[in-house]
């Protein structure tokens, strides 16, 4: 069975959804993600949906579900890269993804996840060096 690759990026996990999701694939992704959150002690999950041409209530429910389970495991879920036409359609469909945080791209999504961490001690000021 195909599986969606999950990349570890520091304290976060990155998932890029590139294929048209089948039900089985969605279920496998939920399982794999929760296992990896626990295995790596991840603080956040970034889900890049920039190549998804549509998000229907099935995918919406999957995103909500992943976010809810991650939250219980003390990790924050950020969905990034939603296409404008998808956003318009989602709202009209009635899906607001209330339990999911969103960011425009992976970089901003990472910032959201790191915003959760306790402030890191600053040693010197690299920007001015």
């Amino acid at each position, binding site marked *: 069975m195909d599986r969606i690759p999950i990349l570890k990026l520091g304290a976060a996990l990155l998932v890029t959804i590139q294929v*048209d999701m*089948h*039900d*089985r694939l969605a279920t496998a992704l939920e399982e794999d993600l929760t296992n990896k959150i626990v295995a790596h002690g991840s603080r956040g999950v970034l889900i890049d949906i920039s190549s998804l*041409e*549509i*998000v*229907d*209530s*099935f995918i*919406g*429910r999957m995103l909500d579900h992943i976010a809810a389970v991650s939250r219980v495991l003390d990790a924050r879920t950020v969905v990034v890269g939603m*296409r404008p*036409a*998808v956003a*318009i*359609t989602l709202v*009209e*469909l*009635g*899906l607001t993804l209330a339990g999911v945080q969103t960011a425009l791209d992976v970089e901003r999504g990472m910032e959201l996840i790191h915003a959760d961490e306790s402030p890191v001690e600053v040693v010197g000021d690299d920007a001015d060096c």
Partner: protein
Amino acid sequence: MTLTAEPAPVEVLEIRSSDHVVQVRQRVRARAIEAGLGLVDQTKIVTAASELARNTIDYGGGGTLSIVFVNAELQRGIRLTFEDRGPGIADIDQALKDGYSSGGGLGLGLGGSKRLCNEFHIESHPGVGTRVSIARWK
């Protein structure tokens, strides 16, 4: 007296499995582009088709989708008709309400699909089956 003939479908697809839902999305997208719909309109009809195709499987036990082009003077687009021979819907008004689901879903499928389209018709008879027809034009 002659009745207006229904245009012959350009395509009929079988909907029995999750793979078919993926196929429905791809074929509806291709036909929507062919009909000249813009990106947002394509996205709306493909999303509605995805919802209804899944309903056809989950509640209707499988069925078919026929695609026809809408080619009226002011309306150019596509019309999709989903048919199943499942148990039917006893209370259509209730099924159209957001948040109502008899199958553990989000309950957005029917009502949501209606909002995404210019035209929406539903006909259902308990014990006979359900036919849902939607259209999107520019």
